[in-house]
């Protein structure tokens, strides 16, 4: 489809949405505006490069605004009423609740059609120079979206916007919205929390040809306790190369087609990993370039992310168990229980390593340790991490208890949905925050806040 046709189709869908809003409003079903908020989030985010969220999902109560972008300090009120009174009311509320302190701009998005002009003087009386607001700039409607799109050169990007609109305006979605509005009194809304975190990665990935003397490292290993075979994998040889070249060990690299890939600058002499690659062979790629080169590149990137997370957790006294492919909280050097202070809604402490005593309380029989598995994956050019909490039972923090699987089953049977959710939130906290005061900095990988998804449904049996 060419640019004009694509934009025409977008305009058509917007018109359809306006009609939907107007029809429902005419029969006093004003809650369509709530849906409008959710429909607009991905669209405004894409068009204006924002990171808007629904303000209702935040713990803090925002009274005058519907959508917020904390990073960019933008607040948006979504409304179907275009008159001056409604704008004045919004401005008053915004001012009264001191929301102006948190944001730099307040936008008002009219889902029907804005007036041709507004008298700014009336607004200035309310604003009283406390924040900036100009009706021509800060009040938007669909025409502003179309003008913005018309200024774009990239057709695929405009097509993406159309795709977003098409998703929202299938017959099914429109019927669903109508159904929800008509059954409003019987509906329940609750929040669900996926066990996912969005991963924030560096923009660049470095690739360099392996530049170590393989044979020498293997023969040298024969002088030590852990002897390498001639056929040893590149990763095993490289693991020993750190010791061989006397450089500090790290896990945040991956071997891919006889090359090392890492988020660390392999071409900088100050970077220890640069000792492992052949000088002059290092190339840089953007993440998107690399991941979209093919499925095996995506898999390689996923492995690199896993290894980078292993490096991160190693700073946090969390062990990586290669065979079990899971992470486990490590006990303190002097073997005993361990607690970590964290914050979700309130500050609390959580026991990550627990001593288990015999009945007579004379002896510690084993340790219970919080553990978790991870899986990283790509979806629509964003990387996500799924975290699954589990448990581990050991005699000394390391060696598995002989009835470990039975003990895990017993423990899990007693755990409710809420307790597993708390484990997930705790683990997410540990990945994003320092767990102890002397934890070393590691900023290569970061995680966004956990998701909150509202789900509205009708309970047929009232349970």
């Amino acid at each position, binding site marked *: 489809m060419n640019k004009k046709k694509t934009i025409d189709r977008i305009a058509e869908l917007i018109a359809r949405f306006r009609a939907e809003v107007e029809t429902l409003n005419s029969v006093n079903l004003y809650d369509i505006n709530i849906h409008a908020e959710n429909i607009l989030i991905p669209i405004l985010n894409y068009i204006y490069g924002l990171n808007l969220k629904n303000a209702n999902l935040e713990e803090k109560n925002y009274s005058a605004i519907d959508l917020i972008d904390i990073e960019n300090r933008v607040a948006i009120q979504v409304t179907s009423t275009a008159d001056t009174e409604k704008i004045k009311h919004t401005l008053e509320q915004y001012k009264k609740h001191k929301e102006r302190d948190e944001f730099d701009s307040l936008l008002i998005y009219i889902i029907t059609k804005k007036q041709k002009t507004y008298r700014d003087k009336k607004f200035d009386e309310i604003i009283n120079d406390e924040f900036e607001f100009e009706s021509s700039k800060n009040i938007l409607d669909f025409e502003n979206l179309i003008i913005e799109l018309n200024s774009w050169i990239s057709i695929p990007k405009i097509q993406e916007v159309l795709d977003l609109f098409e998703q929202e305006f299938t017959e099914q979605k429109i019927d669903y919205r109508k159904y929800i509005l008509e059954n409003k009194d019987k509906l329940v809304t609750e929040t*669900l929390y996926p066990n996912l975190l969005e991963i924030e990665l560096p923009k660049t990935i470095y690739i360099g040809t392996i530049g170590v003397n393989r044979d020498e490292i293997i023969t040298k290993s024969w002088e030590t306790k852990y002897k390498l075979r001639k056929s040893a994998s590149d990763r095993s040889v490289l693991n020993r190369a750190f010791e061989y070249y006397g450089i500090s060990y790290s896990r945040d690299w991956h071997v891919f087609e006889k090359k090392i890939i890492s988020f660390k600058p392999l071409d900088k002499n100050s970077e220890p990993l640069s000792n492992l690659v052949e000088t002059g062979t290092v190339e840089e790629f953007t993440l998107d370039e690399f991941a979209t080169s093919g499925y095996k590149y995506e898999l390689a990137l996923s492995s690199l992310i896993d290894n980078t997370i292993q490096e991160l957790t190693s700073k946090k006294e969390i062990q990586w168990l290669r065979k079990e492919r899971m992470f486990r909280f490590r006990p303190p050097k002097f073997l005993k229980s361990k607690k970590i202070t964290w914050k979700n809604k309130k500050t609390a402490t959580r026991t990550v390593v627990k001593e288990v005593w015999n009945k007579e309380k004379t002896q510690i029989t084993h340790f219970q340790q919080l553990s978790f598995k991870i899986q990283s994956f790509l979806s629509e050019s964003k990387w996500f991490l799924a975290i699954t909490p589990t448990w581990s039972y050991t005699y000394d923090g390391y060696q598995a208890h002989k009835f470990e699987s039975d003990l895990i089953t017993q423990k899990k*049977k007693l755990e409710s949905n809420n307790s597993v959710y708390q484990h997930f939130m705790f683990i997410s906290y540990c990945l994003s925050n320092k767990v102890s005061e002397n934890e070393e900095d590691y900023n290569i990988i970061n995680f966004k806040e956990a998701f909150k998804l509202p789900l509205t449904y009708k309970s047929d049996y009232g*349970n």
Partner: protein
Amino acid sequence: MEISLLKEPILQFQNGEHICPRTGIYKFGVADFENVRPDKIVLGFVGNSDSIGSIISWIKSCKNHIEPKKSNQPNLFMNFPGFNDKVAFKSEITYDESYIRKINNSIFEKAKKSSEDIDDLIIKAVDLFLTEIKFLAKNKNPDVILCVLDEKFTNMIYGTKNTKVDEDDEDNLSMEINFRRLLKAKAMEYNIPIQIVRDRIVKPAKEMQDEATIAWNFFTALYYKASGTPWALKKNANSNTCFAGISFYKSRDKSTTQTSVTQIFNEQGNGVILRGTPVKESKKDKQPHLSEQQAFDLLYNSLKEYYEAVKIYPQRLVIHKSSNYSEEEIEGFEKVAEKMNINSLDLVTIMPTNFRLYREGNYPPLRGTMLSLDKQRHFLYTRGFVDYYGTYPGSYIPSPIEIRLFSYDESPERICNEILALTKMNWNNTQFDRKFPITIDCSRNVGEILKYLGEDQKPQIKYSFYM
């Protein structure tokens, strides 16, 4: 990322619809009431005298109403209305003395004494049952044969001996021997579905299901095995849709070669099962994949068999597979669709996942909760809090299934809705919250039994021989 709740799929009965198989049968009658159906089920019995005696008196007692288990969740446990010609199934059990084939205790003891080990005993016990099944099949031809196991015997031979195989030691490969699977495989050649039943169901222990639920499950399975249709999926549109499950099973020596198998179901739960050819595991993703020709042959032959059975070709075909699709598989399946004038084809992968959703409070998300990560990847809670039951009937938090759409003509919502509906098409169970759809569930059962079947033996095409 988008979340929604799919409605509990509706099942079709004789003169009404309901979401619950038990309530539906009780209130509205079995789905095939107007058709040729098993209004009399002729049963054959094989087992020791005492066990058969107690099962027969239990079956007689099930003609009458059985009280439900007392519970705060009234819909989770329902009374059993009785298996008779007046209510619910409106069908009767018939047999006479000549349909009862007893295995004397002394013969069994002899077999036990002469057995080398437990595997040997299993093989000998299967032979004892087979002799009687063969007799019944040749002389009496009942609809279903009940193989009744007494508890002592069950404890001895039930379960799978499954020792770990050391991959380097090929001489020492162990074969798993499982009584149930071996008996089902060997009995197949006599063309009568069998139902294995333990005599302890007569007096259920505390850890077992309650009396009414046992009766519901037993008689539903029996009705289906006698070629009945207890319930069907509610037809959505006028189009004729078929669901094919494609899976692979490993031979008993655990070699890397796997055999492909397909099962085709329609909305009535009727369908065919067909064994394909052996395939090698791909080195790339450690999963078995069909070549283009194999994919073509497997699907083409299955659809031809399906046509023979129901005399109609589907207009729409949905393929459920427990692994990803290779390019060649896609090519092969698409060619079949083209050749057979199937105008809509959906290629779907259904597999376990690490993804979870947490809900506020103690209960897990509702069954039917669907999270769409993008257009291709969806997660569906098939087990979870069931509004109709008012509880989550399970222990530990449930995990959803991952649904990947490789190519699709219908909307993801519809495809997931159908998967949710197909979790209810298992006639071994009248509680409707199974984790996997019948297409995938069936493939597991079928594979487990087919691996006991010789290469020259022709597998039965009906699911009743495998469940």
